[in-house]
């Protein structure tokens, strides 16, 4: 029986359930019409609703159980297998996770062996590491295993495969039973008085609610995924060093200095320069566009400025690295050969490079948000000011800006949160040296840059050098979330004033 169920793969199972649903739709729809004596008018709902109801009963519970099972089964099987692993088989310096990935690989290998007909299931269970060179056998079928396979690993892999196949069989059986049960239930329910439309619409509504709550699920996913790994990190690394230390020097042999402060400094410094560029330009652009410009200028200038926001950040990154950086070096560097004859800057990557380019990127954020806010200031306030004899600029400075100030502060905070979370510009333009220094011509590094460098390439999820990226990510998330919430609060509060 197990063999039979195991021969049905998951895609086939899904297709079978869907086929059953289509079949259910057709038969139940026909049955509904027949139950009304061929006259659709005596039915509560349109006949197709009876069909949809049947399809819903067949497919939804079955597929839902399948999805949940697929999610939970690996975890349960893994836990069961970990319990059987003897503690001493975990090698020095390695972790349970590493060992489990070995176990999984061997189990997958056994699966391939059976699938390709090299061994039967029974033979895989009687394998012995002493008599068979399993690594060579697996290599023959194209499964590469790193180290020599130890007996406990093989035993665990056998148990893993055993549990997995049994669970797979149960899964297939239960899903099919659910689908058929749904069919039978829908069949019994179908009668002229059954309110099929209401049932179907309740189902659709449930789907809509689930889709809407995906936003919550994503946030929870973000927080949990980072929280768990951060907790792991703080188990391995002193939290005082992370929050209060002064140097960032990851060392994959261990004993690293992993302090967020130099990174935070780099992040804030670059963001500050970016805002120094973006806020005046963006604000004046917004004032001009909303107060002075005619409709024609506005129709051209506003979309053009917003193109700056639509350009992918990788383009800005390249622009920083290859155009702005070398240009700044030719101005502020190269000693006597430079434009200013000074030698302040040696490499193309620096705080100034990244900050300037990020500032350009942020101009449209500041300008379009401020534009909306300035436009929301009631016309009566302008008229009052003009009536008192103020010039246009006096009106803007003394009436409109104070009235719009909370909103503009909100816009600036949103731009700041954008700057703090920006990645590509700083990865390419800011450099990789963590330091706390006030010199804008020096290369510095940011939180996002370090996340990228700690998590790309070969990562070992047992070392603090990798896990620190999650703690950095969590800090970044909290920081930007705080700024956003504050900004939205200010903007919302301000809007209510004039509505």
């Amino acid at each position, binding site marked *: 029986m197990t063999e039979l169920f195991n021969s049905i793969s998951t895609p086939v199972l899904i297709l079978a359930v869907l086929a059953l649903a289509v079949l259910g739709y057709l038969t139940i729809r026909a049955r509904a019409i027949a139950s009304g004596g061929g006259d659709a008018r005596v039915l509560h709902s349109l006949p197709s609703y009876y069909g949809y109801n049947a399809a819903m009963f067949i497919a939804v519970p079955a597929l839902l159980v399948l999805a949940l099972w697929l999610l939970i089964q690996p975890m349960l099987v893994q836990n069961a297998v970990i319990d059987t692993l003897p503690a001493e088989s975990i090698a020095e310096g390695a972790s349970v996770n590493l060992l489990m990935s070995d176990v999984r690989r061997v189990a997958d290998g056994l699966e391939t062996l059976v699938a390709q007909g090299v061994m039967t299931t029974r033979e895989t269970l009687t394998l012995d590491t002493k008599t068979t060179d399993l690594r060579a056998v697996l290599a023959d079928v194209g499964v590469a295993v790193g180290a020599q396979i130890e007996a406990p690993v093989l035993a665990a892999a056998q148990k893993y495969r055993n549990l997995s196949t049994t669970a797979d069989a149960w899964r297939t059986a239960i899903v099919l039973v659910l689908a058929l049960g749904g069919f039978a239930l829908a069949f019994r329910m179908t009668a002229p008085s059954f309110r099929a439309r209401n049932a179907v619409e309740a189902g659709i509504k449930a789907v*809509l609610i689930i*889709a809407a709550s995906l936003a919550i699920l994503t946030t929870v996913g973000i927080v949990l995924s980072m929280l768990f790994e951060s907790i792991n990190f703080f188990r391995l690394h002193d939290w005082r060093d992370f929050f209060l230390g002064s140097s960032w020097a990851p060392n994959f042999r261990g004993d690293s200095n992993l302090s967020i402060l130099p990174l935070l400094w780099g992040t804030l410094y670059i963001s500050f320069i970016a805002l120094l560029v973006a806020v005046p330009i963006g604000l004046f652009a917004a004032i001009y566009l909303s107060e002075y410009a005619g409709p024609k200028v506005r129709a051209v200038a506003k979309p053009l400025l917003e193109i*700056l926001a639509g350009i992918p950040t990788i383009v800005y990154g390249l622009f920083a690295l290859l155009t702005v950086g070398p240009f700044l070096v030719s101005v502020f560097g190269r000693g006597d050969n430079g434009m200013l004859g000074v030698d302040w800057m040696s490499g193309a990557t620096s705080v100034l490079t990244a900050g300037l380019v990020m500032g*350009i990127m942020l101009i449209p954020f500041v300008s379009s948000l401020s534009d909306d806010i300035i436009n929301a200031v009631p016309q009566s306030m302008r008229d009052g000011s003009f009536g008192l004899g103020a010039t246009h600029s*006096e009106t803007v400075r003394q009436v409109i800006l104070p009235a719009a100030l909370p909103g503009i502060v909100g816009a600036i905070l949103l731009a700041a949160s954008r700057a703090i979370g920006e990645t590509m510009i700083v990865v390419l333009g800011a450099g990789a040296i963590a330091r706390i220094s006030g010199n804008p011509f020096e290369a510095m590094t940011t939180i996002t840059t370090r996340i990228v460098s700690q998590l790309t390439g070969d990562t070992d999820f047992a070392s603090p050098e990798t896990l620190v990226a999650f703690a950095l990510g969590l800090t970044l998330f909290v920081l930007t979330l705080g700024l956003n919430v504050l900004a939205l609060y200010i903007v919302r509060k301000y809007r209510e004033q004039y509505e």
Partner: protein
Amino acid sequence: MTDMADTARHKGSLLVQDARTVKRNRAEARFKMYGIAAITIGMLMLAILLVTIIGRGAGAFQQTFITLDVPLLEDKLDKNGNRDLADIKKVSTFGYAPLMRTAFEEKVAAIGIETKLSGKDMANLLSKDAAATLRDFVLSDPSQIGQTVSFTFLAQSRVDGYLKDRVDRDNIANDKNISAEQLDLVDALIEAGSIEKKFNLSFITGADASDARPEAAGMGVSMIGSFFMMLVVLALALPIGVAASIYLEEFAPKNWITDIIEVNISNLAAVPSIVFGILGLAVFINYMHLPNSAPLVGGLVLTLMTLPTIIISTRASLKSVPPSIRDAALGVGASKMQSVFHHVLPLAAPGILTGTIIGLAQALGETAPLLLIGMVGFIASNPPDSIAEGLMSPNSAMPAQIYEWAKRADPAFYERAWGGIIILLVFLITMNAIAVLLRRRFERRW
């Protein structure tokens, strides 16, 4: 009369501005200038950016080719002379190198150029890809063995750079890939018409190449990776986004749960993209064990990122459908659900589509999350064979490919990165133009 006294105090004519008015008017003009300056700076930056991109990237679409007549000697390629494909396959690219050397020597002799270079040095002007090109040709048509075939090979990147003014004679002193004598030969060959710059289709359709062969690198395969990611985003983000918006806009009661959802969506829209990359790494790769670097994973991550954008624009277009439409549907006996799906949704469709296209364009240009799920740092050499493979097998994506090239410290790759940006921007501009056209064509004012 106080009025009289005031007018009396104000000396001078209304037609002549007093000092204070002049000052105020100057301040006014200054203020206006600041605004114009700000707009001008913004425009200028955009112009500089676009000029830089086009100026530095256009070169990538042109490539230097060297034309040679290669004798496909039978004793080198097919020793048994029986045209058996299995035998011919045994000859590796090394076996083809001597052919190209002779071809080059003959070419130089035919044109009558005096040079001290050996055949090997001459053949070095060709791309390292050239032998493989020749081998592929022979394998696809073994009957050509024994004949002399005219071939157009890629030139190596230094020669290409020389024709594009990236490499000049002053800065090649320490370059072991090219020498002054070789450049002399290149000059002579250009004169003879054997070296020329042509449009390079393989930059658009080809795969990335290793560090030593920038001339052979192309965007094609990463474009396919991006395409599959967009497919995933479209298939997931559009239905989920629309369903969520319908619930929030049409059905949701005003309570704290709905409030939480709304706050969540607006916050997710502002979460840094790299955080979504961390989520993808932790959940999809570490927990669910989906394959690293797969466009499916990239698509899932980008879906979560694009959802808020799509939800916000969909809700706006649902909101713009007037309540009278809903009331009319309800009035003739439709259920709430029917009124939404049969009447409101079709009317909101153009707006939803516009928002979706803009969301997709945003996702297409996103790089940071892709770095964390491993869509950089390797070379996917072949386009995938099937949809399943396209989704599951490792690939890169356009912006990730550009990043990859930007990291390789070779000006030849920088040119390709800029060229890649041109291709990426062409896609983005097209998508945005479609969105604008849709909005213009179908937008309805009620």
